[in-house]
């Protein structure tokens, strides 16, 4: 069993909608988590990182961690076609989810 699990999607939303992405993790020792965005034929780029409690907001992006349920979420508000990419969650220890492909349609 992978230590970080993520639904691969694809997730298709209309422009302007809220995108909701989720991961689960199994290792209680994980405390820091990162979200990466990966465009086609590119390497992943760091979006944001968050500690294992509460929310962190950065512009249109909000990351949440629910330590009790071992659940990690990323929300993208007012989604744009340029947000179409694969989003990966990861632990500080370098365990990555499989990535969720997001398609934002104009």
């Amino acid at each position, binding site marked *: 069993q*992978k230590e970080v699990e993520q639904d691969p999607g694809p997730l298709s939303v209309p422009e302007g909608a809220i995108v909701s992405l989720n991961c689960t993790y199994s290792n209680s020792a994980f405390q*820091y988590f990162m979200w*990466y965005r990966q465009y086609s*034929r590119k*390497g*992943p*780029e*760091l979006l944001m990182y968050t500690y294992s409690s509460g929310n962190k907001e950065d512009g249109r992006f909000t990351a949440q961690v629910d330590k009790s349920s071992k659940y990690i979420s990323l929300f993208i508000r007012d989604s744009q076609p340029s947000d179409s990419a694969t989003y990966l969650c990861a632990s500080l220890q370098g365990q990555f989810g*499989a990535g969720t492909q997001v398609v934002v349609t104009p």
Partner: protein
Amino acid sequence: DVKVTQSSRYLVKRTGEKVFLECVQDMDHENMFWYRQDPGLGLRLIYFSYDVKMKEKGDIPEGYSVSREKKERFSLILESASTNQTSMYLCASSQDRANYGYTFGSGTRLTVV
């Protein structure tokens, strides 16, 4: 702009060949990593290094080796390429052991025929 540069975007090699994938970072980062990325499996750690001439096995080191002779350069070696090593290979670096986020290269798409 900080960068991790992988020497090749696309490679095609024959079964049994020895393959070298090169990665260079210009950020003076301590840590460097090699991952492979496959559909449905995500990123899997092959090897990593926290210092020059130091290397540690990741989750899937079999069939691979690495070399880090200089701080900025981390090479992945496929000793005898096999078709199941066809994959996207990603190199990454991070500043220190806290690892608050990696900087990735653009990847090398390796096809072994």
